[in-house]
């Protein structure tokens, strides 16, 4: 239930980011195709030929346009190369952006979503070489600190419950005493309830490599296996 509510409010990261690239790729393709078509078409050649002819109306022989055609052909080839390079650069940038930014951020979002759902045992696996990695490390630090606080609360509340039991026992069995007054019994019950509520809250989380066993904090399987191996060498 915890995961479900978090999932509903978390955006789908890659989809949102890729939406920005699709119109840009479309525009580059459209403009490139238009440019290639314009430069390669006869229309431009005719326009240039007409412009040259109109500038030399007295010339009897029509000017030699083969050089113009050659230049235009060359220009057409260059435009194709430039547009292709531009498209390729953009495509590579989009892939690199996806790999180095969108994907790690998405991975981080999934990790944070799991942590927000109470899974402190799951850390974000990121490379600390870049800014995103550093943010990931800081989020991991937050999770570690939170685990520490919660386990601290567990140990303190456990100790408080034991003290409460002791107080009740001493008051209840004091020789010649009348036991615990009724108004205090209610207060003690409330205190106990509050402490147990805190313990239930602590138990609602999943912890990194520790578990609860008969109200005690025990190392998880990873540490236990390691310890068994280590001690066998002593």
């Amino acid at each position, binding site marked *: 239930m915890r995961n479900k509510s978090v999932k509903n409010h978390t955006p789908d990261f890659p989809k949102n980011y890729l939406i920005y690239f699709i119109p840009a790729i479309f525009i580059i393709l459209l403009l490139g195709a238009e440019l290639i078509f314009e430069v390669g078409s006869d229309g431009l050649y005719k326009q240039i030929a007409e412009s040259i002819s109109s500038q030399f109306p007295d010339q009897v022989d029509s000017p030699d346009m083969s050089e113009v055609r050659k230049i235009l052909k060359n220009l057409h080839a260059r435009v194709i190369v430039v547009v292709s390079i531009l498209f390729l650069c953009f495509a590579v940038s989009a892939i690199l952006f996806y790999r180095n930014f969108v994907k790690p951020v998405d991975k981080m979002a999934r990790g944070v979503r799991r942590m927000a759902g109470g899974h402190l045992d799951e850390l974000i696996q990121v490379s600390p070489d870049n800014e995103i990695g550093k943010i990931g490390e800081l989020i991991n*630090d937050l999770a570690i*600190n939170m685990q*520490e606080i919660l386990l*601290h609360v567990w*140990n303190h509340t456990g100790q408080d419950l034991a003290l409460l039991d002791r107080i009740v026992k001493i008051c209840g069995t004091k020789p010649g005493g009348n036991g615990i007054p009724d108004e205090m019994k209610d207060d003690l019950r409330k205190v106990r309830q509050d402490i147990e509520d805190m313990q239930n809250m602590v138990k609602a989380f999943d912890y990194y490599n520790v578990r609860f066993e008969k109200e*005690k904090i025990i190392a998880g399987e990873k540490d236990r296996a*390691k310890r068994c191996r280590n001690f066998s060498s002593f």
Partner: protein
Amino acid sequence: MSKRILIVDDSSMMRKMITKILEPGGHNIVGEAKNGEEAVELYKSLKPDLVTMDITMRGMDGFTAAQEILRYDDEAQIIFLSNLDEDKYGEDAQRIGAVGYVNKHKSREILEIIDGP
């Protein structure tokens, strides 16, 4: 007597808390490590008088790091400071060669071990 101490704990908040307990007691925090690997490296370079060591950490755990340190320097003074149950793990710490085991919710007791009775 003031001691040069290396704090090993994966929680930055806990490292700060231990520092706040030890520094007013006149001790000098010479380094902080957030996992076992860092602890072993720092121990070799800083040669502290004492190490406070957490057990459950990301990367190399506290027991393994303590063993590595004791293998390098068999006179190393290591006190385990952990949230794990003392009855269950205190004995393991002693077997490794640590000078003490303190539960984190009773962190102030570490001063009693360092300063003696």
